[in-house]
Structure formats: C-alpha cells, structure tokens
C-alpha cells in the first residue's frame, strides 16, 4: 500500500480561519493525508475517525508529544486507556447523569439562566457570547463540579488557560508559566472545596470523588476537576453561540424549531455543523492500513471530527445548517471510550434549558450583521462574538 500523500499547501493559519473548504477538498481527493504544518496525518472521513477512536489498542490516547501534561501538571485520564481510564472516569461520571441533572439541578440551572437573562437590556445590541453563553456555562459548571466560591471570571480564565496550555504545541515556556499560576490557584480552591464537601457532601463531581468508598488518588481527583474545567465551559459556550447563529440566520428553521419545540434537534445540528472540539490526536501503536494507505507505527493520526460531521457519505448538504435532518450521526462528542463525559449535561443544559429560555425571553431577537461574525479555531472552534439585538 502507498504511504499517505503529503499536503504542503495547508498552513495552520488557514485551518484556524476556515478549515471547512480544506476538509471538503481532502475528503474528495486525499481523505488520509500527511499535513507537515501540523505534523500529523489527517483523517477526514467519518468511517476512519470512528474506527480510530473505537480502537484504543491500535490507536492510543497517550500521545507523549502533546503539551497536556505540563499544562495540567498531571497525567490526566484524557491520555489514558483501559482500566485506569475507566476507573478515573467512572469516579465522577455519576455527577453527570441525566437523572442527577433532572432531579437535583434542573431548577437551579433554570434559575441561573434566568438571573443572567434578567440583567440584559431590551432594545439594545448585546454580545450574547460574553453576556450569556460563557458566564452561564461557567456558573452551571461551578455547581456541577462542586467548586462554589469560584467566580465566573476565574472559571473562564482557568478554562481558557488550560486549553491554551494544552494547545501549546510550540512549547512556549511563557504559556506554561501562565498555566503554572492557574494550576496553583485551582489546586488551592479545589482543596478548600474538598474539605467543605467531606463535611457536607452533595451530588457534585468533587463530592462524589472525595467521599467515594474507594477513592481514586488525590492527584487524579484534581486532574479530573481540571479536565472538566477545561472541557466544560468553552464547549457549551461555543455550541450555544453556534446554534444561535444557525437559528438566527435561518428564520424559517427557527420558526419550525419553536413550533415543534425541537431544541434538542437544534442542539445536535449546531454541534454537528461546527463541532466545538474539531480534532483529536491518537498515537499509532502498530503498522496498519487506513483507507488503503499504509500508516506506520509511531505516526500520529488526527481524527478530524469537524470533517467527519460533514462527510458526504453520511450527510446530505452537510455544509449547511439544517435542523430537520432525518439522521444526525455526528461525532462531536467523539466515540469510543473517550466519548465526552459531559455529553448528557451539554444536551440538558444548553439544549433543554439555555436555548429555549433565551428564545422565550427574547422571541424577536435578531442578528444585525451575520457577515461580521468572526469564526476562529482549528482544534477548538466557534464564533468570537455574537452581537444580537434584543427586543
């Protein structure tokens, strides 16, 4: 079998600005392709991305070349497989179940959303990205994790700094100095919260972990909380902003979503159309073949779920935002053992609470200048603002 063709034309900047035309071309011409600018082999078809993530023996999560460990000052479950991964993940998974959300937290999340909506002025143009999408996601996550006392600003800053550190592929020491400081702040706060939750347990993730009969090591409890901070704010924020954009630029679909209360479908379509997490790496453990291309042991393949989500084999007119699809087998939450642990939470909070409450409060809001929205990001992607006129 031939080795993967090499695409020298693709620069990181192009992928950050708009990767979708590049992925469309790759799917058609070179679905398995080496991209020297990223030092990875891109997989752009849904069948390949799924195959790689489902097989953790052949495609390991423990890619030692990523800067995740220094950024989090921990070997986190994101980079583990097998029993160790399952144990660390299941230690907090029960805090993220639909039942816990429904019975214990749904009303609180509604109240939080209402409180932030109450602050918004009418008749003005407001950036919902910074006024709602980000802080409401941060506030809700603070409760889910058991980090009471952390401000929205702290949660958002920690989240961003962890993500920037984990994406520090240039190994810039200045970025690690920033994550070091953030880690010190988080370590202190997590320890203080743990002490409180040992005395007064609740259903939060931190409480479940510290009060477990057979707890995982403290280092991994802290690492889990940091992973949830890094993965639980920007993604719902970007998902919500993307869904808003999709609905406000497609008024006919918005009308139908409201009529059918199809918020869940709108949520799925938003995250399919522009996946908040666009790509993930896996280390190839043995020589193998993907799509007729030889992939050598030691290569790092990149599952591009952003591209899988628009694969012509699965989606009709996948480049367009269309809520009312017959099927929507997107991979935005990933697949395999590392399937997003927060998927149920995201669906319930963004899809069932935040979106409907927002549109109920401001039924006639509009996006005055869709062309002005800047979309950004290769690994993580979303709009950078969402200025909406509220009335």
């Amino acid at each position: 079998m031939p080795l993967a063709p090499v695409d020298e034309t693709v620069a990181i900047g192009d992928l950050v600005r708009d990767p979708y035309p590049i992925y469309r071309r790759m799917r058609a011409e070179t679905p398995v392709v080496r991209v020297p600018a990223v030092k990875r082999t891109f997989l752009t078809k849904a069948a390949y991305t799924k195959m790689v993530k489902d097989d953790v023996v052949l495609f390991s999560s423990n890619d030692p070349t990523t800067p995740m460990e220094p950024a989090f000052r921990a070997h986190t479950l994101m980079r583990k497989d097998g029993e160790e991964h399952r144990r660390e993940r299941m230690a907090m998974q029960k805090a993220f179940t639909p039942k816990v959300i429904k019975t214990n937290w749904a009303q609180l999340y509604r109240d939080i959303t209402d409180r932030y909506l109450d602050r918004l002025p009418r008749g003005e143009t407001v950036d919902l990205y910074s006024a709602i999408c980000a802080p409401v996601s941060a506030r809700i996550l603070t409760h889910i994790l058991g980090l009471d006392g952390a401000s929205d600003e702290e949660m958002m800053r920690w989240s961003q700094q962890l993500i920037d550190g984990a994406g520090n592929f240039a190994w810039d020491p200045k970025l690690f100095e920033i994550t070091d400081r953030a880690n010190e702040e988080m370590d202190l706060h997590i320890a203080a919260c743990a002490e409180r939750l040992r005395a007064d347990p609740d259903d939060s993730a931190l409480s479940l972990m510290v009060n477990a009969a057979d707890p995982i090591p403290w280092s991994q409890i802290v690492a889990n909380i940091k992973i949830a901070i890094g993965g639980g704010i920007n993604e719902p924020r970007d998902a919500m902003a993307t869904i808003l954009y999709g609905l406000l630029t497609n008024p006919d679909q918005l009308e139908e979503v409201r009529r059918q209360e199809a918020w869940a479908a709108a949520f799925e379509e938003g995250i399919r159309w522009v996946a908040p997490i666009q790509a993930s790496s896996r280390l190839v453990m043995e020589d193998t073949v993907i799509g007729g291309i030889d992939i050598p042991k030691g290569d790092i393949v990149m599952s591009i779920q952003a591209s899988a989500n628009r694969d012509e084999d699965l989606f009709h007119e996948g480049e367009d935002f269309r809520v009312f699809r017959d099927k929507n087998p997107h991979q935005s939450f990933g697949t395999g053992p590392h399937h997003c642990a927060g998927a149920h939470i995201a669906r319930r909070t963004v899809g069932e609470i935040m979106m409907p409450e927002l549109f109920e409060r401001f039924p006639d809001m509009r996006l005055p200048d869709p062309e002005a929205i800047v979309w950004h990001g290769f690994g993580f992607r979303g709009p950078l603002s969402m200025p909406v006129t509220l009335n």
Partner: protein
Amino acid sequence: MVKVTYVAADGTRTEVDAPPGSNVMQTALDNDVDGIVGECGGAMMCATCHCYVDEDWSDATGARRDGEDDMLDCAADEVRPNSRLSCQIRLTEGLDGLVVHLPEEQV
C-alpha cells in the same frame, strides 16, 4: 443469521437479521433502527444504547457485565431489572428470535 426484534416505545416492531458475533446495538445501527444511538461505539461509556430485554429472553441474554450497572445509572430513561446496554448483548445462535424493548429517550 439471528433474528432480532426491536419494539419501540410507541409499540412499533422492527425485525432484522444479524450475523452471529455482532451485538444488539450494532445490529440496530446497521439496520437504521431508531431508538438506539450507541454514541460511544460499544465502549460502555455513554448509556445511549439502553434497552429492556423481553421477559422471555432474560435468561438467554444472561446477567449484566462488569461495569454495566454503573453505566446504566447514566441512562436517560428509567432503569428496570431487565435493563441492559445493548452493546453488551452479543448475538449467538441461541438468541435467534430475541426481542428487546426500547426506552422513550436515550440522550
């Protein structure tokens, strides 16, 4: 081939044939059966392939596997004694005729 019948929450029955060795989740996906999502691909990490095994088949399908109980706690719909993650039910010739009922919601 092994015949599997999926009964949707609204009572709709879908009968499909599957090769032995496959599982109840994958068979649903391969045949476009609605009501099973199977988002984690059978890694027992998402609880979106929840099903209720028909009483007549509970012995044949056997007990839940290690770790399945914990993950079932994460299912969106009510968990009953006959609840299983369908990705963990491997199809053998002995399961020819298997009937499973699907919950109203998976996500």
